[in-house]
């Protein structure tokens, strides 16, 4: 069943095209890797889905409903979780508050979810009273992911979670994705680190200059020369 369907999406910054007719689908319970170099349009695609940039053309359907005209807060409440590039945790709020603020359920549900997050990211549980800006980069990344999961979204948009993290931490962060998917949340993961991303996703889409350059099963893409060429130039 298709959860997210992006059809012929075009986004421009001024007259500058950032996405040129991109179509991507994400099925319920699926993890899809969105690959590509800097400026290929990965972040723009994510922002268009959550509603932080307005497309010039094309359609985005979530659970069969067009998202056009809905503001980001409405989309979030429909079940789209967004974990942005650069983390953007609420700096002066504590770890606990960062998580609580993103949950729209009642007190009991908030308590349950926050326990689930601390179970998934034990490092955060130990620091729940600490202000977010005082966390290390890796912990901030985990907090940002935890925050985007607090309202139990059906789709998680995860933008470059490995940015600025060491390989070990990257593995740790990306390693949570199978568990997130197993919990019933589909994931669209934007990553530069192609091999690592394809290792945790079932399908992949390669963007190049705002267009889809290749797509397919993760295993096929990982072996493909095309992907290698996109990153290392052959």
């Amino acid at each position, binding site marked *: 069943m298709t959860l997210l369907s992006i059809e012929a999406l075009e986004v421009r910054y001024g007259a500058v095209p950032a996405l040129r007719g991109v179509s991507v689908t994400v099925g319920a319970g699926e993890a899809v890797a969105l690959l590509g170099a800097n*400026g290929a349009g990965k972040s723009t695609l994510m922002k268009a889905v959550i509603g932080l940039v307005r497309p010039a053309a094309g359609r985005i359907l979530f659970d069969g409903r067009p998202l056009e005209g809905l503001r980001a807060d409405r989309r979030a409440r429909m079940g789209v979780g967004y974990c942005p590039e650069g983390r953007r945790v609420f700096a002066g709020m504590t770890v606990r508050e960062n998580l609580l603020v993103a949950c729209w359920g009642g007190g009991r549900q908030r308590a349950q979810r926050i326990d689930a997050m601390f179970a998934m990211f034990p490092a955060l549980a130990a620091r729940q009273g600490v202000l977010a800006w005082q966390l290390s980069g890796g912990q901030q990344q985990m907090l940002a992911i935890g925050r985007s999961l607090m309202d139990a979204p059906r789709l998680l948009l995860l933008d470059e979670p490995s940015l600025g993290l060491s390989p070990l931490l990257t593995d740790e962060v990306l390693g949570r994705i199978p568990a997130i998917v197993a919990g019933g949340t589909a994931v669209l993961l934007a990553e530069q680190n192609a091999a690592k991303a394809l290792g945790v996703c079932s399908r992949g889409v390669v963007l190049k200059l705002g267009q889809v350059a290749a797509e397919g099963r993760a295993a096929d893409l990982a072996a493909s020369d095309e992907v290698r060429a996109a990153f290392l130039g052959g």
Partner: protein
Amino acid sequence: MRRWVAHGGVALPLAVAACAYGVFVLPHASDYALRVLTVAGVYALLALGYGFIFGQAGALSLAQGTFMGVGAYVSGILAVRYGVAFDAALPVSVGLPVLLALLVAIPVLRLQTHYFALATLLIGQVVLLVATQWESVTGGANGIGGVPPLSLLGHPIEGRLPQLLLVWALVAAGAVLAWRIVSGRLGDAFALTRLHPVAARAIGIDTGSLRLAAFLLSAGFAGLAGSLYVHAIGVLSPDVLGFPVMITCLTIAVVGSRLRVAGAIAGAVVIIELPEWARFLRDDYLLAFGCILLLVVVALPGGLVETAERLLGWVGSRAVPSVMAGRVPAIFAPADEARMAGTRPAMTEGVGPFIAARAGDADLLTLVGVSRRFGGVLALDDVALTVRSGAVLGLIGPNGSGKTTLLNVVTGIFPADAGRVRLGGRDIAGRAPHAIARLGVARTFQTAALAAELSALDNVAVARGAARLGVGSALRAGRRDRAVVRGEAMALLERMGAGAYAAEAAGTLPPGIARLVEIARALATEPRLLLLDEPAAGLNETEQADLGRRLRGIAEDGVGLLVIEHNMPFLVPLADRMVCLDQGRVIAEGTPAAVQSDPRVIEAYLGTPPP
């Protein structure tokens, strides 16, 4: 004719209307009406000056009324207590506000928007309190009466009409001066500083000095306005130092159009005459005044003059808005400009007219042990590298590996925590960005840092003008100077293969072209070292090859190039040597082929799947 109209924006029709008004209405106007119009002229001068700091420099100063008050007090006290006439006192009544501005500018001018606003507000409050307390000199809260009328060369100017004419003659002179300043290179520098301060510093504009110049100019105009005011009114009162004067000035600037010379004058007339026109409102005119201010801010973002320009469609007929209104806009075809300048742009590819060939293969830029930390993250860790004159060094590395940080450290945007940065044997670590730019370091940014509102040509011309900005050249306004600069800028655009886009607004250019324009702008400063951040991103294969050839040509002229790039097919043939960064450290260095096949580099880029 059309050219004239376009040059002046709405200034010409306004001037015609003003002349007609002067000839037909003024001789029959009442004394009171003349007095109001004289005060409007005083406020026009005040707002003309405010245009420099609030409009051009974009800083919210709340001390403009204070400078006017100081001018009024100095002139009034000199006249009443020491018998010095208006014109004889001018050097002091203008000079003292400027001196006060200079004194407060040193500590206050570098403050951010809201701090600056508060600081200037407090200075105003202090001056007002001192003036009311220091009774023996200022007359305290009652002020001083019997200030003699204006005078010129020892002759008092009696009568309302002659006084009005003198004030408005000075307004005209002030407007011409302001127009010359903002339409010359200084205006270009102001525009870029306001629109894109980072880019301004990167091409060598000393944004701090520019702000200071604007602040001093605004104080000078305010001093003149204050001096005129006190002699025209005949009474010196502390009201002239009060905050309402400042609010009026701010309102004039916002309602008129803060970036337009004509806006200051139109705004002053509208706001000062408003209570007269709105007499039927009686005491409620101040209420109307507040509502109008709110409406203009909300509904007419550019103010009356800019709105009028839009409505009249004159702006629409220009392809691209010019840097500033009330200045020479980009109405010429680029080729026209070059002809006027009397220079034939050098179109031959690879041979630029502006970059002196520097022979040799000397070490141009040397980094030793450079480290930079952000919070807990070591963004650069003991980095060493060398760029040679006439050679291209490629810098690669995964996202977040510190490449752009390295560029920012070299260009002085933030200092290194440790290590040395040497340019041609000179230590440049810790210098300001504009100072480093002036030593011959030019750069481009990952997302092109162009002023989106300006044409491609204007973007390059600003840098060309700023490269040789001095006090003399600042005032050498006018078309000839601008035409020379624009001819040179055009040649540089041609050299980068972006000549066809000269007239397009930079904000509408495709990213690849914007980057070419940015490189042309970098070349306009005649650099020795050129730092490029992902110049090929967004270009297709043909365009990449073309750019590679052009960059090679620049290197052959003796410029050293440091090129950050992810795109190996582009970088490998271009670079003489390559360096790979990962997590702030140099993990590989050598010939492109060697670096490309280094296992650590492959690991850093492709990674290994998680276990």
